[in-house]
């Protein structure tokens, strides 16, 4: 059912809902793509960490210096693994309907963004080396933080979703 019969007229609430729903679907699709990219980067960094091999690192970066630095682990856990878990949570949240999933996705992405910003600061000013994979991950996480926060603010609410074909 749609609410068009109730609202009628030119300022139709269903129209707004449909637009909100369409915008949310675009945000969600973009977030899925980014989460998959982030997952790929984190998986690669996790692989090279455990296989103890040198990551592909061009453009004058020094990934080994960054990856072997003190800041490559948090409480003994490689940050690549933390990234992998973070991206997996964000991706999973994008396939779960409901506001709780929006909150979990946004919270994870914001934490990821904050910690990525800290690690980028360490790369630039303490380690004095740049790892392109880490920078790429930081950019992906920043975009995910924007997208998931936007969804949290703009996605149709639970009470509205009954009126819309929600893919969530």
């Amino acid at each position, binding site marked *: 059912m749609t*609410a068009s019969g*109730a*609202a*009628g*007229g030119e*300022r139709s*609430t269903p129209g707004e809902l449909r637009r909100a729903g369409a915008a949310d679907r675009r945000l969600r699709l973009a977030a899925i793509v980014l989460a998959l990219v982030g997952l790929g980067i984190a998986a690669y960094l996790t692989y090279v960490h455990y296989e*103890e091999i*040198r990551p592909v690192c061009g453009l004058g970066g*020094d990934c*080994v*210096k960054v*990856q*072997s*630095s*003190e*800041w490559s*682990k*948090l*409480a003994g856990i490689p940050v690549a693994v933390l990234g992998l878990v973070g991206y997996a949570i964000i991706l999973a949240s994008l396939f779960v309907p409901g*506001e709780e999933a929006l*909150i979990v996705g*946004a*919270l994870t992405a*914001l*934490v990821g*963004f*904050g*910690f990525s910003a*800290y690690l980028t600061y360490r790369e630039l000013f*303490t*380690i*004095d080396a740049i790892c392109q994979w880490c920078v790429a991950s930081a950019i992906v996480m920043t975009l995910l933080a924007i997208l998931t*926060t936007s969804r*949290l*603010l703009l996605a149709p*609410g639970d*009470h509205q979703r009954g009126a819309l074909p929600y893919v969530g």
Partner: protein
Amino acid sequence: MSQEPRQTRQQRREAARAARVEAEHAQAAAAQRRRRLMTLGGVLAAAAVVVVVAIVVSSGGGGDKASERAAAATKTSGAIPGQKESSEMLAGIPQKGIYLGKADAPVRLVEFADLQCPICREYSLQSLPVLVQDYVRTGKVRMEFRNLSFLGDDSITAGQAASAAAKQNKLWNFADVLYYNQGEENTGYVTPQFIDRINKAAGVDAAEADAFAKTPASREPLGAANTLANQYGVNSTPTILVGKRGGTLKAVDADATDVGAYKSAIDALLGQT
């Protein structure tokens, strides 16, 4: 002039109902916006707390000796990175050629490494200081450094310089300082100037070492390391072998920074002695 047709009661009721529904929608939307903003505020606050905790844990983890050394390795100002840390780690411990520690130590630890190998650097900066402090300084373990030098020309140049440092019983200082200053693999960074800096920071007589490093004799320890590696089936670096003095050696299957695993392997041997 034409008059607008008067609305029937039915039409007025529908119009009123539509207005009411629209007002309810507007109210619901406003309430949802407020609720979402509050949720966002909560999410931002929670994220900030988690990030701050992560940063504190990340920085606080540097309190131990190994992390301090790793952090020092990233600093480029002042004296040559690692000079002070290496000298502190090894101060007062006997060195002879490729060996570190007392000759009568009950356990032997053999490190197969390449000075260009980044994971060997991780081992050297993070695990080694703990093992030296807990086992070598206390006379329980004697270490030996076997230089494989297989990654490229820079490895061989550094390996020959390491042999020269070993001749002066300064190999462990040389290797440790070099790891602190390790560059990008096979970029030709192991220049005579680079070696000179490392020698000076490691307390090696640079002129004497330079002269020896140019002789074929400086390659002999590299060949001996290869032979021993073949004997034990060592095919990657770093590989750490441990065993009782005079006994057989066994590889420790552990991450380069998993110092707990190395300690367990050594403790097991010490329990047997």
